[in-house]
């Protein structure tokens, strides 16, 4: 097979549409008779609904209905399903589409208003008379786990819903025999996803067919369909779910949300199409976040600083519910031991309910947390033993010749973790070299003459990618000779319409412009899971490869029949199957497709099924492990505490690159998300669980003026675990970025400064540390 597109930096096929304002996002969908929904949301973090009187609201202009959960009883009732059941969760801990009795976070939906316009619906919100009895609030996880703490759910015995444990080896023996043991405690805060497009749903009942159509800004449209079908007691076949153009996801859009169900229920109840577009204020209140974790850890190392073991415990704030089961804390746990070859580890995570918006994965999903604490522990060893930070890592890493390497850890499903391939030390050496660590002290001295503190930081990570079980794809050649790829994997900007087309175009020897990718529409492809966990290139990409190869084989079989040639003498090129060495003897794919489309009374070649099409399901039974290292330089103004990242270098191995342009884009965006987590983004709540930073003036997203240019170097170690050799690239930029920036800040502040064990780090905090250092 010739490879023309795989690996090439081809411009994206979806761009011309998106660049000219011709995208179709959920809010762009307008249907006849459509009503606009808004939600009445709880203004208290924990309370009991005493009464709700919509009568005044109902008499306002443009108002068509006000619904509470009781109004939906003929269509569905009860709590939402959980996205990911876990054996430790005896029953799902989810909310109802609309709260029934108790509300457990500020922003929880209680009722909805349908009106002719969004503005009128908002007018009516203030007229709904709601009486809520305040209940005691659990405003953070450490409070929630303390003795005598109030309960986040008044009916539960404890706020701790599960304790996850991960261990390997004889940790006590390893610690007892180790030359050194160091302890640290960490406070990690991550903040929200903040896709530039908020969530949105349109639901339309089809009165004649009884079908329900749903357009949702989701990473998991098929999960929405499955769970909604179950909830409504319907067949999946009667529900069409489409994710149209989606304006960014970053994790939280992978949930199945109460609003998606409520909008569907409301559409069924009123018989009209209903649109709900989340506004930014709601996004701050009701879209899941990834918030706080508190880690107490001990690391053991030998006399040379080689990391031997890690043990300790984490308190994880899961928010008011567990819509995604225990995936987030479980992923944090499964991310140990990172790139380090540890003789033993023993870790536990207490998952705690609080009266804050639920948490679910945000880009990296607990892996950045694990990377942060592991990298800080590596830096602790370096600091205490007075070793170069790179050296501690080199001595502690899993080595290339150990691959495949069984870490002793377990995946979320309990299966053993085995890293597939790679050279971790090589990635680290690459960034050390490219950032010119050797010349750093000279640069530091120069900055000092300008009154600035310069620091150099490093961090590394390993990332499990390509999570199973599958994303499927079908490939079909139309009688016009065009290739249509269909998949259930939704796109939120990752460029699947280009990368999947590249794979199909190569397999079928057609020009890229002849390939169209259709995705995330349950009428076009039957099954899908989720665009999460850096999995689509591996899963859907491999499935396209499998399906396209089947189509190719089929085309060759038919062409052999038409050309009366042996199959081995044929090749596929330029949209034709032709005889090798005799290019004039050829048959276009369009002709083959027409033959296989059938004509009345005309037989098709024996042994070939009709339709020049095939479906592929790559079964992703084993994870592909991407990895990388990052290095950066920060410059601190010691008077203000202002911290600028002046240089940033990434070395990344995500196996074979399908499209370097797209991979680089994923990495850069991911790094900047991590920089946001290190320096800017902080979702604060007060003791009553009230959000304090719910505008873009108060919640600081990374802006263009503060972000550095990011230099990227690729190492390409093909994954042996899938047919295209790919590993995921969506989160590798984010995972080590916080650790890298913090390591650089630490270096800038010097050895006398306190050891940094938290993020985000504010300028005020930096000034305080500098003051402490000088005392």
């Amino acid at each position, binding site marked *: 097979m010739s490879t023309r597109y795989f690996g090439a930096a081809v411009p994206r096929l979806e761009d011309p549409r998106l660049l000219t304002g011709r995208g179709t996002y959920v809010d762009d969908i307008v249907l006849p008779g459509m009503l606009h929904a808004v939600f009445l949301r709880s203004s208290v973090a924990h309370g009991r609904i005493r009464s709700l009187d919509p009568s005044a609201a109902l008499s306002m202009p443009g108002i068509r209905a006000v619904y509470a959960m009781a109004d939906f009883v003929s269509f569905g009732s009860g709590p939402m399903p959980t996205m990911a059941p876990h054996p430790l969760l005896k029953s799902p801990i989810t909310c109802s589409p609309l709260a029934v009795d108790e509300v457990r976070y500020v922003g929880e939906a209680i009722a909805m208003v349908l009106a002719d*316009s*969004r*503005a009128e619906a*908002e*007018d009516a919100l203030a007229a709904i008379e709601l009486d809520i009895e305040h209940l005691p609030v659990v405003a953070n996880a450490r409070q929630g786990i303390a003795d005598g703490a109030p309960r986040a759910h008044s009916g539960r015995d404890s706020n701790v819903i599960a304790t996850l444990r991960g261990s390997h080896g004889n940790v006590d023996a390893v610690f007892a025999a180790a030359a050194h043991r160091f302890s640290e405690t960490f406070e990690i805060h991550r903040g929200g996803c903040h896709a530039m497009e908020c969530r949105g749903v349109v639901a339309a009942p089809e009165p004649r067919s009884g079908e329900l159509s749903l357009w949702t800004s989701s990473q998991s449209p098929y999960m929405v369909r499955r769970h909604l079908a179950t909830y409504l007691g319907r067949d999946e076949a009667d529900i069409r779910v489409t994710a149209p153009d989606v304006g960014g996801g970053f994790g939280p859009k992978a949930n199945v949300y109460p609003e998606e169900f409520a909008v569907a229920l409301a559409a069924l109840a009123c018989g009209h199409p209903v649109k709900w577009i989340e*506004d*930014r*204020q709601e996004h701050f209140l009701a879209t899941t976040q990834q918030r706080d974790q508190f880690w107490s850890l001990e690391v053991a190392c030998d006399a040379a600083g080689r990391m031997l073991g890690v043990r300790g415990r984490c308190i994880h704030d899961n928010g008011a519910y567990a819509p995604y089961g225990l995936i987030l804390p479980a992923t944090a746990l499964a991310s140990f031991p990172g790139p380090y070859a540890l003789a033993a580890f023993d870790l536990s995570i207490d998952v705690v309910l609080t009266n804050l918006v639920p948490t679910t994965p945000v880009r990296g999903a607990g892996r950045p947390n694990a990377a942060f604490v592991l990298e800080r522990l590596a830096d602790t060893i370096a600091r205490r033993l007075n070793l170069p930070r790179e050296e501690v890592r080199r001595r502690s890493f899993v080595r290339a010749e150990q691959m495949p390497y069984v870490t002793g850890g377990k995946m979320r499903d309990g299966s053993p973790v085995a890293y597939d391939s790679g050279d971790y030390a090589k990635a680290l050496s690459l960034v050390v070299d490219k950032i010119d660590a050797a010349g750093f002290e000279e640069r530091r001295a120069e900055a000092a003459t300008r009154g600035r503190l310069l620091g150099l930081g490093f961090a590394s990570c390993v990332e499990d990618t390509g999570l199973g079980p599958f994303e499927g794809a079908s490939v079909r050649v139309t009688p016009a000779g065009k290739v249509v790829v269909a998949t259930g994997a939704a796109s939120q900007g990752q460029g699947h319409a280009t990368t999947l087309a590249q794979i199909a175009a190569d397999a079928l020897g057609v020009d890229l412009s002849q390939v169209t990718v259709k995705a995330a529409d349950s009428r076009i492809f039957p099954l899908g899971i989720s665009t999460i966990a850096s999995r689509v290139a591996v899963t859907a990409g491999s499935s396209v490869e499998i399906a396209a190869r089947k189509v190719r084989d089929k085309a060759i079989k038919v062409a052999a029949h038409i050309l009366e040639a042996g199959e081995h003498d044929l090749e596929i090129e330029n949209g034709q199957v032709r005889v090798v060495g005799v290019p004039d003897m050829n048959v276009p794919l369009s002709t083959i497709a027409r033959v296989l489309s059938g004509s009345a009374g005309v037989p098709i070649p024996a042994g070939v099924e009709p339709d020049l099409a095939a479906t592929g399901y790559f079964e992703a039974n084993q994870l592909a492990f991407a990895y990388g290292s990052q290095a950066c330089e920060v410059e601190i103004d010691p*008077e*203000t505490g*202002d911290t600028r990242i002046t240089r940033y270098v990434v070395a990344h191995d995500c196996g074979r690159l399908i499209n370097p342009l797209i991979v680089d884009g994923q990495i850069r965006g991911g790094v900047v998300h991590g920089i946001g987590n290190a320096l*800017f983004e902080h979702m*604060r709540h007060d003791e009553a669980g009230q959000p*304090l*930073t719910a*505008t873009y*003036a*108060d919640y*600081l997203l990374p*802006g*263009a*003026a*503060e972000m550095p240019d990011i230099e990227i170097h690729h190492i390409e170690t093909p994954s042996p675990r899938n047919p295209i050799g790919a590993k995921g690239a969506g989160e590798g930029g984010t995972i080590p970025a916080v650790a890298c920036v913090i390591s650089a800040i630490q270096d800038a502040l010097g050895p006398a400064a306190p050891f940094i064990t938290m993020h985000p780090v*504010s*300028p*005020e905090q930096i*000034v305080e540390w500098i003051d402490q250092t000088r005392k």
Partner: protein
Amino acid sequence: MKAPPFTYHDPRSRDDLIGLLAELENAKLLAGGQSLVPMLNFRVVAPDHLIDINRIPDLAGIRLSANAVVLGAMTRQWDLQASADLAATAPIIREALAHVGHFQTRSRGTIGGSCCHLDPAAELPALCALFDAEFDVAGPNGARIVKVGDWFKGYLESALEEREYLQSIRLRRWPAGHGYGFSEYARRRGDFAIAGAGALLEFAEDARIRRAAIVVFGVEPGPVRLVEVEQILVGQTFSEAVLAEAAAQASALDAMADVHVSAAYRRHLAGVVTRRALTEAARPARQAV
């Protein structure tokens, strides 16, 4: 986040505006809209009437006289930034405007809007304080001049009364060649400053300071002139001692705390930016402008 309903008025003359101000209850004036419209969208304000003053002629403009610069209340920040006359007369204004919002908001944001909204961290009211501004306001009961010292009443509160509007702002001109310095610290480009300072210095032939003005903003609810330091400066040559005194005074202000920063950090920053603004103002290169 849709604005609540209101009745919209767009008077075409000052007389019509005064008529509306006399007549309407619970009315709000709409200038550039860069602060008011977000407040409407969040529904933290819900006026019955919105009086849009964008279509009244002659409310915008930059006029220079021998002693003063007169800025129409509806002069856009974009036009202030672009004005060569202003840059030549009061170069600190252009420098400060680079910190006011963004390219995309300065196109509509006005100096009058900023001075009536009075965010504590806003640069333009601070410049007004620096230039001993006089605010020319008018209403059904006639016009009056409010001196800058009387303009700042409290947090988000100016001396403008409910039925008045701001016509123009008169800044006192400084002689050509005065030194100027501006410094602020914000987390990101375009964010409201945590603390900022502006300084103007006029030097005599013998390098002694003839006149000084220093303003600190973002620290207390309104901009504050460091009057005592200004008085100390006059007659002295510029020195580290002078700087230290100014920074110390700025650090002694009654700083606000908020969800992001403590009062102590704000006070600390006030000292830092004051020192930086004054240092800039004293640079000989600056005074040649």
